[in-house]
């Protein structure tokens, strides 16, 4: 099936994914509640920075940072690695392979379609809280917000690619959930999710600039809270999109190797 026909089918796939997400909305609510780690981290870092600021972070900056973290996580979250693992194990991936649309594209549609439901439940509340409690700390220059839009898109794409890559790995090693666990542990600590990347010592920050984690979450959050001048923000965005390209290259490699080995258990 040509790329053009695939793209024509894409809106329908999005509608199906949206309906599915809506059908399991109670479950979705619990998932959202379980991503409340930024709020706990907010309490801790607020206690640390309340009386005396750390770097550019006082109490209010911490509130802005972690509410922004919560919002960006909701916008860029993905659980496809677990889903692909399950489908590889029970063989339903075989059904996806039979359809005339590329399986990776159908996974991407699922992920994209669930976003509005996730977002509608949580983002309005978090945004109001952000503006009320930490309005003055937010970025005000429209140009930076344009960069932010692309940074969120980039962060979403990297997270999607990592999930797809680790999902493809499941075709090669039967279960890659543990690989995902390791990735997630690193992501929590080094992406800016548990603490702002800016608070790491200099040498650690230099290392983190070369790892993908910060570009998944930290960069959009930093842009929202006014950490960058426009030029520096653009440079960071450029680096982020190099990571996007690299991770999708990895997906292509792993997909080709994996699909050759995939034997559709029980199929």
């Amino acid at each position, binding site marked *: 099936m040509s790329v053009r026909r695939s793209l024509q089918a894409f809106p329908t796939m999005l509608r199906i994914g949206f309906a599915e997400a809506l059908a399991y909305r109670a479950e979705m609510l*619990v998932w959202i509640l379980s*991503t409340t780690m930024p709020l*706990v981290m907010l*309490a*801790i870092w607020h*206690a640390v920075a309340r009386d005396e600021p750390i770097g550019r972070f006082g109490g209010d900056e911490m509130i802005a940072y972690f509410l922004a973290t919560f919002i960006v996580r909701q916008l860029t979250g993905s659980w496809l690695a677990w889903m692909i693992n399950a489908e590889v194990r029970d063989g339903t991936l075989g059904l996806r392979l039979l359809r005339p649309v590329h399986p990776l594209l159908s996974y991407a549609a699922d992920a994209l379609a669930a976003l509005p439901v996730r977002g509608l439940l949580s983002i309005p509340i978090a945004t109001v809280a952000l503006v009320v409690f930490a309005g003055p700390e937010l970025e005000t220059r429209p140009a930076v917000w344009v960069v932010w839009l692309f940074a969120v898109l980039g962060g979403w794409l990297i997270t999607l690619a990592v999930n797809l890559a680790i999902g493809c790995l499941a075709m090669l090693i039967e279960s890659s959930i543990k690989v995902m666990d*390791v990735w997630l542990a690193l992501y929590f*600590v080094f992406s800016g999710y*548990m603490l702002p990347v800016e*608070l790491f010592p200099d040498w650690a920050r230099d290392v983190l600039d070369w790892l993908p984690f910060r570009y998944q979450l930290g960069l959009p959050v930093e842009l929202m809270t006014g950490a960058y001048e426009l030029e520096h923000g653009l440079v960071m965005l450029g680096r982020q999109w190099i990571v996007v390209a690299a991770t999708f290259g990895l997906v292509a490699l792993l997909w080709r190797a994996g699909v050759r080995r995939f034997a559709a258990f029980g199929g």
Partner: protein
Amino acid sequence: MRGYLSLLAFQLRTSFALALQYRVDFVLEGFIEVFWTVTALVPLFVIYDVREAVAGWSFGEALMVTGCFTLLQAVLEGVISPCMTLVVEQIRKGTFDFVLLKPKDSQFLVSTARVMPWRAVNVVTAGVLFAVGFAEIGRAPALLDLAVAAALLVAGIAILYSLWMVAASVAFWVVKIDNLTFLFSSIFDAARWPSSVFRGFLRVLFTFVIPLAVMTTFPAQALLGRAGTVEIVGGLGTAVLALVVSRRLWVRAVGRYTSASS
């Protein structure tokens, strides 16, 4: 009573045999558990790199809380969680019938059904954290303090067990609760920090609704020789209350069980 003890020994033997069967997998799981624990320490290091004390806790003292948390989490991952996953699966499939047919107490049977020793490897990590913490403070713990701390840790485990027991009982009504336990685990994660860090709503939530403070901060205070009557009575009292409530709920829930096929 003796019957239950030998039954417990038997159940444990079966679990260990099962664990040895998949040893590569479980060694890997143990490794990942330790990896998670160590990476989760990074924020603690970064905070105490810039501050001497946070909310009245020095680095060594905060390590006590993290140690208690790590210990409780190891018990949760290694013992409580596997049993609860098993019982929820049995309820869903209807094989819980076989548990009820046995002439022993059903709560005892499900709570001892499966132990995953490799996942409890973090008990060792907790020991290391305590040792480093006391080295940092520059003294050894008093014997009496150790005894009180041990009692409060047992109370903490009892509370944790009761919470998961309540979740398992809820499964008789709503069947699908795997994301409920996921939610609980992510809330429990806040227990790695001293409770005095939290203020306002979170403080009320973590003291009275989900007593995280009782589970990890109280035993840590005991280790440091700072536990007063409030901590000791509060800790043990909460544990007894939690056990009684969860037991009653379990009995009611089992009474409602209608099996999956009928």
